[in-house]
């Protein structure tokens, strides 16, 4: 008991941002999970919880804000056209959320596959990866079609009757945007996932903020280009 206490006290004074071998040693010797040890090291009695969280989160949050604002700037350029099509405004939060959700799912599941050693050299021959790509593609197309139909229905309710041509263009914009973003998401998750994993780091800590930020930014850019092209 004394040894555990001594070890845990030693762990508390280890610098937060350093992965100390002591974590591994305590984990092996006393069978305490790494997650518990991580929590003790991060938020133990001698640490300032709020300071720790702010210090670790602020950079990535500011980075995400800047990236999103650049995407927003692209939309600001096509504001007039964008705002004249009601379904596009309705679809904006939907597409944003959808891409964020898929970014999180793809990143976390690919990270898990890497940790479990399921990813070998021939990526596309991997059944689980192929299943993930197919599942996400089917779900994203289905949810995009559903969202467009609902947004067209909502837009048509007040005094706005959408002719078939405009509806079809909005439908195409949403589908092309989703498909292009899916390709970007998978490319980011696979290439950066492999890169961080080979560097000996946990891809979970980088892939989600990276893929969601780039996908959000990409969403605004692709949406702006498609609006210019179609209208």
């Amino acid at each position: 008991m004394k040894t555990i206490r001594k070890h845990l006290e030693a762990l508390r004074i280890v610098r937060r941002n350093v992965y100390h071998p002591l974590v591994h040693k305590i984990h092996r010797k006393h069978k305490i999970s790494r997650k518990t040890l991580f929590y003790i090291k991060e938020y133990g009695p001698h640490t300032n919880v709020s300071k720790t969280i702010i210090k670790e989160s602020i950079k990535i949050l500011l980075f995400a804000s800047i990236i999103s604002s650049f995407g927003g700037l692209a939309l600001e350029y096509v504001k007039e056209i964008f705002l004249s099509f009601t379904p596009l405004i309705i679809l904006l939060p939907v597409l944003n959320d959808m891409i964020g959700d898929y970014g999180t799912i793809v990143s976390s599941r690919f990270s898990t596959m890497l940790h479990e050693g399921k990813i070998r050299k021939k990526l596309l021959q991997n059944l689980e990866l192929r299943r993930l790509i197919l599942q996400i593609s089917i779900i994203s197309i289905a949810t995009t079609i559903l969202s467009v139909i609902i947004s067209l229905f909502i837009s048509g309710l007040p005094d706005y009757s959408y002719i078939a041509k405009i509806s079809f263009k909005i439908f195409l914009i949403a589908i092309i945007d989703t498909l292009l973003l899916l390709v970007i998401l998978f490319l980011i998750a696979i290439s950066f996932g492999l890169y961080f994993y080979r560097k000996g780091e946990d891809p979970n800590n980088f892939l989600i903020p990276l893929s969601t930020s780039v996908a959000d930014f990409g969403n605004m850019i692709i949406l702006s280009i498609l609006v210019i092209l179609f209208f």
Partner: protein
Amino acid sequence: MSIFDQKFKDIFSSELISILSSLIAGTILVTYADKLFLLPGMLILLPGFLEMRGNISGSFASRLSAGLFLGIIKTNKVNTKIIKGNLLASFLLAIVVSLALGLIAFLFNYLVLKIFIPKIILIPLIAGLIANAIEIPLTLFMTFYLFRKGHDPNNIMGPFITSTGDITSIVSLLIVLVII
């Protein structure tokens, strides 16, 4: 290779709930589009403002869940150092990020669009305070509630935060625009 397995059903059902609430947010957005987008630069800050809620409250829920599973956080003890620290950090982060979003929108307006609107700095700041005053306690309550009911908050809180976050963000932006 079975594609339509349990994971497929889980993702599809949570995504359906997520898009339905995003459609509600989109409908509010379109209803008040004339007020919301009257000010130049609102589209610059909107994506970041919507994303912020998920980023801050999502991490908050994830930290709470980890603490709950490890037994470091107890659902019947809210007045602890770790919870107070988390709440304070989430609020402070929201203030800093909202201010940053306002400053970025102001700078983009001034440098790129050549429009001088200092008001745009205040809008996300005040709206961020209002939205987080609702969203952060709601996240704490929901995470504890789900854990007490025997669910894993990690599986439910993500879509829940993005869904409720969109609605609270747009409503708070509207409130601020009316005030200002």
